[in-house]
């Protein structure tokens, strides 16, 4: 793929993040990210798939610099930002890297009109044109909404509309990287595809690199060029979407693929098989592992124990 020849938009190496829980005495540590290596190429959509609590949101928030990783390096658009922008992200970073949140009902300030929200983004990054009204109309129409919604408050709009506005806010600053954290999981089913198609269009028309965080494997397959699978903070498998899902090698991925509802499926659920998967997943998680390339063409790799007999 040609994107591998150019510098990736985001290059993460060895990212670690641990959260400390609980109070005075019972302080528990939760390993949210464990030595994460990830590349996101320009004009590429990478889906980060995992169950809830797997750490995938944490990774997105680290890239958005809402959280700080404990260790590791993060090169965004060629700059090693954890070193050069140590304490706080620069304005330029905020212009290059943007985020769409999961909850359309929580990501817009209830007391602000839509046009204010969007105009603010434009002004902050000096993208406001003299004909700002026309610019706002262009912006709102580019996400498939009519100009009338500019005068509305968030509570007057539907979830799907709010999410499109969140995307419009992101587009206002003309980013090069968009982090989409479960952007459709709280939307009504029939409008989800529209939002996903919009993200695909942004990749096609503007060459934006997109990290699509989701627990829904089917939508990841639909939207993303590449998929990486995360289990308890560790990336366990990755590769081109169709190739990976057609022949998953890691037991966790296999379990996930087998669990997606499939009306065409003929074999009934086998609880013993499920138990075998879980045992194998636990065993693999304990053993010291390495990334093994399965197929160079599709970039399919799997994180497996070092002396595993065969996969």
């Amino acid at each position: 793929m040609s994107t591998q020849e150019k510098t990736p938009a985001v290059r993460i190496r060895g990212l670690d993040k641990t959260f400390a829980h609980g109070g005075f005495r019972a302080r528990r540590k939760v390993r949210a990210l464990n030595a994460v290596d990830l590349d996101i190429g320009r004009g590429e959509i990478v889906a980060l798939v995992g169950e809830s609590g797997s750490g995938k949101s944490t990774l997105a928030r680290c890239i958005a610099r809402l959280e700080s990783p404990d260790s590791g390096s993060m090169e965004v658009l060629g700059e090693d930002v954890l070193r050069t922008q140590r304490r706080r992200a620069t304005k330029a970073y905020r212009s290059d890297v943007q985020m769409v949140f999961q909850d359309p009902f929580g990501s817009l300030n209830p007391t602000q009109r839509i046009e204010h929200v969007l105009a603010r983004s434009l002004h902050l990054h000096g993208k406001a044109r003299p004909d700002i009204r026309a610019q706002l109309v262009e912006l709102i129409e580019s996400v498939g909404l009519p100009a009338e919604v500019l005068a509305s408050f968030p509570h007057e709009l539907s979830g799907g509309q709010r999410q499109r506005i969140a995307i419009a806010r992101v587009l206002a600053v003309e980013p090069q990287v968009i982090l989409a954290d479960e952007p459709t999981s709280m939307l009504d089913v029939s409008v989800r595809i529209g939002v996903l198609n919009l993200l695909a269009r942004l990749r096609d028309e503007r060459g934006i690199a997109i990290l699509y965080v989701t627990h829904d494997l089917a939508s990841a397959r639909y939207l993303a060029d590449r998929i990486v699978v995360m289990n308890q903070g560790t990336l366990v498998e990755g590769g081109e979407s169709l190739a990976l899902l057609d022949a998953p090698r890691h037991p966790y991925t296999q379990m996930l693929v087998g669990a997606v509802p499939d009306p065409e499926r003929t074999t009934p659920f086998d609880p013993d098989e499920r138990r075998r998967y879980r045992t194998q997943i636990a065993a693999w998680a304990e053993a010291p592992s390495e990334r093994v390339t399965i197929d160079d063409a599709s970039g399919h790799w799997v994180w497996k124990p070092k002396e595993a007999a065969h996969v």
Partner: protein
Amino acid sequence: MSALLEIEDLVVEYVSDERAVRGADRVSVSIGEGEILGLAGESGCGKSTVANAVMRLLKEPARISGGAVRFDGQDVLRMSTERLRDWRWRETAMVFQSAMNSLIPVMRIGDQIADIFTTHEKMSKRAARAEAVRLMELVRIDPARLKAYPHQLSGGQRQRVVIAMACALRPRLLILDEPTTALDVVVQQEILAEIKQLQAELGFAVLFITHDMSLMLELSDRIGVMYAGRIVELAPAAALRQGARHAYTQALLGAFPSITGPRERRVGLAEGTRFTDIGDLVEVAPGHFVAPGDMTVRTEGNR
């Protein structure tokens, strides 16, 4: 197949000072013994309203203002409070949305389950505890967990407990309202397999409510699709899989891309699409009913 539950022209209204909104608008559907009927649709379509109306659990300002609900021939809407209390849980039981979060947090699981038996069957505490153990084995949870509090169990285990509680008195109809929405896909599959197994063992009929069409197609015998309080399509699952007839059903099915097969661009429902003047169901093929109506698109359309 004799109908176990018959819903005929059910109308549920939410009444405020200014107006009355129909949560369910002349809904007619029936469920046979041992059948799994799925009720699909998005939030606000009325599927939960119908389910709660059947059990007469809706609170003010909701009221049932039309139609009939018959269970095994008995008129549910005319039942007295005592008869209703008897009927509920014994013959029909319900698992609510995020029911796993509605377990009493300060009471042990075992006590909560035993409560069902001491209340409904007037069993002694000891007998009730024995039944609780049997129920735990039915849903494959270690009976030792009966001593635990809800927060000590995982989400999936709690949901199993709630399902076990619903099955406690061997009802003939089990209503499940989005039983797996808050759970991960892996746990979801396990819970649904459990439900299928329970159904095979105990033989109850199921009214299964969800917005996840692919789940519904996998699990249900027949499926009803609801929109704005009306049923727009009612057909056996196989028929829907082969070809849905109503535009809304097609949009719903289209929203769930497949995990296998070629990757093709899908088109969901355009922002602002509305279906209006939904008529009564018309049989277009044996057992396959579709509602005629109009569809209007209010914005620029799909992009």
